[in-house]
Protein backbone atom coordinates (compact mmCIF):
# COMPACT_ATOMS: atom_id res chain seq x y z
CA UNK A 1 0.00 0.00 0.00
CA UNK A 2 1.34 3.43 -0.89
CA UNK A 3 1.49 5.48 2.35
CA UNK A 4 -0.17 8.56 0.82
CA UNK A 5 -3.31 6.75 -0.35
CA UNK A 6 -5.09 6.44 3.03
CA UNK A 7 -4.89 10.23 3.46
CA UNK A 8 -6.65 10.89 0.14
CA UNK A 9 -10.04 9.91 1.54
CA UNK A 10 -10.09 12.13 4.62
CA UNK A 11 -9.39 15.75 5.41
CA UNK A 12 -5.84 15.32 4.11
CA UNK A 13 -7.23 14.35 0.73
CA UNK A 14 -9.41 17.45 0.65
CA UNK A 15 -6.45 19.67 1.37
CA UNK A 16 -4.32 17.80 -1.14
CA UNK A 17 -6.98 18.28 -3.84
CA UNK A 18 -7.26 21.97 -2.98
CA UNK A 19 -3.48 22.36 -3.15
CA UNK A 20 -3.39 20.58 -6.53
CA UNK A 21 -6.17 22.82 -7.88
CA UNK A 22 -4.39 25.94 -6.62
CA UNK A 23 -1.20 24.70 -8.27
CA UNK A 24 -3.05 24.10 -11.54
CA UNK A 25 -4.58 27.59 -11.33
CA UNK A 26 -1.17 29.17 -10.77
CA UNK A 27 0.29 27.20 -13.67
CA UNK A 28 -2.53 28.30 -15.93
CA UNK A 29 -2.13 31.91 -14.83
CA UNK A 30 1.62 31.88 -15.50
CA UNK A 31 1.12 30.33 -18.95
CA UNK A 32 -1.78 32.63 -19.90
CA UNK A 33 0.07 35.72 -18.69
CA UNK A 34 3.08 34.76 -20.81
CA UNK A 35 0.84 34.30 -23.86
CA UNK A 36 -0.77 37.73 -23.29
CA UNK A 37 2.63 39.37 -22.77
CA UNK A 38 4.13 37.97 -25.97
CA UNK A 39 1.08 37.84 -28.24
CA UNK A 40 -1.01 40.91 -27.41
Amino acid sequence: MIPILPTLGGAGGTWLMLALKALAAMGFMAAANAVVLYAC
Partner: protein
Amino acid sequence: MPAEKHGTFGYWHDSVFLVSLGLYLLNREWIKPVLHNYSPFFHGHLNDSLTVPVALPVYLLFYRWIGLRPDDQPPRWWEIGCHLAVWCFFFKWFGPSVLHRGVGDPLDNWSMLGGGIVAWLLWQRNWLTGLFQARKTGPLPDGLSKA
Protein backbone atom coordinates in the same frame (compact mmCIF):
# COMPACT_ATOMS: atom_id res chain seq x y z
CA MET B 1 -16.78 21.71 -15.54
CA PRO B 2 -19.67 20.60 -13.32
CA ALA B 3 -22.85 19.79 -15.23
CA GLU B 4 -25.08 22.00 -13.07
CA LYS B 5 -24.94 25.74 -13.51
CA HIS B 6 -24.95 27.75 -10.30
CA GLY B 7 -25.28 31.36 -11.42
CA THR B 8 -25.88 33.67 -14.32
CA PHE B 9 -22.35 34.34 -15.55
CA GLY B 10 -21.75 33.10 -19.08
CA TYR B 11 -17.91 33.25 -19.20
CA TRP B 12 -17.02 33.10 -22.93
CA HIS B 13 -20.52 34.12 -24.02
CA ASP B 14 -20.90 36.91 -21.47
CA SER B 15 -21.95 40.17 -23.16
CA VAL B 16 -19.32 42.32 -21.40
CA PHE B 17 -16.61 39.85 -22.45
CA LEU B 18 -17.81 39.69 -26.07
CA VAL B 19 -18.14 43.47 -26.51
CA SER B 20 -14.71 44.04 -24.92
CA LEU B 21 -13.12 41.34 -27.09
CA GLY B 22 -14.73 42.99 -30.12
CA LEU B 23 -13.28 46.36 -29.12
CA TYR B 24 -9.82 44.79 -28.65
CA LEU B 25 -9.92 43.12 -32.08
CA LEU B 26 -11.27 46.29 -33.72
CA ASN B 27 -8.39 48.26 -32.25
CA ARG B 28 -5.78 45.63 -33.13
CA GLU B 29 -6.89 44.88 -36.70
CA TRP B 30 -8.45 48.12 -37.98
CA ILE B 31 -7.52 51.13 -35.86
CA LYS B 32 -3.85 50.66 -34.95
CA PRO B 33 -2.69 49.70 -38.49
CA VAL B 34 -4.02 52.98 -39.94
CA LEU B 35 -2.55 55.26 -37.26
CA HIS B 36 0.55 57.00 -38.58
CA ASN B 37 1.68 58.41 -35.25
CA TYR B 38 1.92 56.84 -31.82
CA SER B 39 -1.31 57.25 -29.91
CA PRO B 40 -1.07 56.63 -26.15
CA PHE B 41 -4.76 55.75 -26.03
CA PHE B 42 -5.00 53.31 -28.95
CA HIS B 43 -1.49 51.81 -28.52
CA GLY B 44 -1.62 51.46 -24.76
CA HIS B 45 -4.43 52.55 -22.49
CA LEU B 46 -7.33 51.03 -24.43
CA ASN B 47 -5.80 47.54 -24.36
CA ASP B 48 -4.94 47.92 -20.69
CA SER B 49 -8.46 48.99 -19.79
CA LEU B 50 -9.81 45.90 -21.61
CA THR B 51 -7.56 43.48 -19.69
CA VAL B 52 -10.09 42.64 -16.96
CA PRO B 53 -13.25 42.25 -19.11
CA VAL B 54 -11.42 40.19 -21.76
CA ALA B 55 -8.99 38.10 -19.74
CA LEU B 56 -10.76 37.48 -16.44
CA PRO B 57 -13.69 35.38 -17.80
CA VAL B 58 -11.18 33.01 -19.45
CA TYR B 59 -9.25 32.59 -16.20
CA LEU B 60 -12.45 32.12 -14.19
CA LEU B 61 -13.71 29.52 -16.68
CA PHE B 62 -10.53 27.50 -16.13
CA TYR B 63 -10.94 27.76 -12.34
CA ARG B 64 -14.52 26.54 -12.74
CA TRP B 65 -13.40 23.63 -14.92
CA ILE B 66 -10.94 22.39 -12.31
CA GLY B 67 -13.46 22.91 -9.49
CA LEU B 68 -11.66 25.76 -7.75
CA ARG B 69 -14.55 28.17 -8.42
CA PRO B 70 -17.65 26.82 -6.69
CA ASP B 71 -20.34 28.61 -8.74
CA ASP B 72 -21.10 30.63 -11.88
CA GLN B 73 -21.80 34.00 -10.28
CA PRO B 74 -20.51 37.14 -12.03
CA PRO B 75 -16.93 38.03 -11.03
CA ARG B 76 -16.69 39.35 -7.47
CA TRP B 77 -14.70 42.43 -6.50
CA TRP B 78 -12.03 40.36 -4.78
CA GLU B 79 -11.61 38.08 -7.80
CA ILE B 80 -11.03 41.17 -9.93
CA GLY B 81 -8.74 42.70 -7.28
CA CYS B 82 -6.55 39.60 -6.88
CA HIS B 83 -6.07 39.27 -10.64
CA LEU B 84 -5.41 42.99 -11.03
CA ALA B 85 -2.67 42.77 -8.40
CA VAL B 86 -1.02 39.86 -10.23
CA TRP B 87 -1.37 41.49 -13.66
CA CYS B 88 -0.04 44.86 -12.51
CA PHE B 89 2.97 43.08 -11.02
CA PHE B 90 3.49 40.78 -14.03
CA PHE B 91 2.80 43.11 -16.98
CA LYS B 92 4.15 46.34 -15.56
CA TRP B 93 7.15 45.15 -13.53
CA PHE B 94 8.14 41.52 -14.20
CA GLY B 95 7.59 41.73 -17.98
CA PRO B 96 9.50 44.98 -18.63
CA SER B 97 12.22 44.48 -15.96
CA VAL B 98 12.94 40.76 -16.07
CA LEU B 99 11.66 39.51 -19.44
CA HIS B 100 12.40 42.81 -21.25
CA ARG B 101 8.98 42.71 -22.83
CA GLY B 102 6.31 45.42 -22.55
CA VAL B 103 6.40 48.89 -21.03
CA GLY B 104 6.10 49.74 -17.35
CA ASP B 105 4.00 52.90 -17.49
CA PRO B 106 2.26 53.70 -14.15
CA LEU B 107 -0.70 55.14 -16.05
CA ASP B 108 -1.33 51.65 -17.48
CA ASN B 109 -2.07 50.36 -13.98
CA TRP B 110 -4.72 53.05 -13.58
CA SER B 111 -6.18 52.08 -16.97
CA MET B 112 -6.38 48.45 -15.86
CA LEU B 113 -7.99 49.50 -12.58
CA GLY B 114 -10.51 51.75 -14.36
CA GLY B 115 -11.41 48.98 -16.81
CA GLY B 116 -11.79 46.58 -13.89
CA ILE B 117 -14.14 48.91 -12.02
CA VAL B 118 -16.31 49.50 -15.10
CA ALA B 119 -16.39 45.76 -15.82
CA TRP B 120 -17.35 45.01 -12.19
CA LEU B 121 -20.19 47.57 -12.35
CA LEU B 122 -21.48 45.99 -15.56
CA TRP B 123 -21.16 42.42 -14.26
CA GLN B 124 -22.87 43.30 -11.01
CA ARG B 125 -25.54 45.51 -12.62
CA ASN B 126 -28.40 43.19 -11.63
CA TRP B 127 -27.26 43.07 -8.02
CA LEU B 128 -26.63 46.84 -7.94
CA THR B 129 -30.03 47.58 -9.51
CA GLY B 130 -31.68 45.33 -6.93
CA LEU B 131 -29.80 47.11 -4.18
CA PHE B 132 -31.00 50.54 -5.33
CA GLN B 133 -34.55 49.26 -5.79
CA ALA B 134 -34.54 47.84 -2.25
CA ARG B 135 -33.31 51.18 -0.91
CA LYS B 136 -36.11 52.98 -2.75
CA THR B 137 -38.93 50.68 -1.72
CA GLY B 138 -37.58 49.48 1.62
CA PRO B 139 -38.71 50.65 5.05
CA LEU B 140 -37.92 54.27 5.82
CA PRO B 141 -35.97 55.25 8.96
CA ASP B 142 -37.87 55.92 12.19
CA GLY B 143 -39.76 59.23 12.30
CA LEU B 144 -40.04 59.52 8.51
CA SER B 145 -43.03 58.65 6.38
CA LYS B 146 -43.52 58.40 2.64
CA ALA B 147 -44.72 61.63 1.05
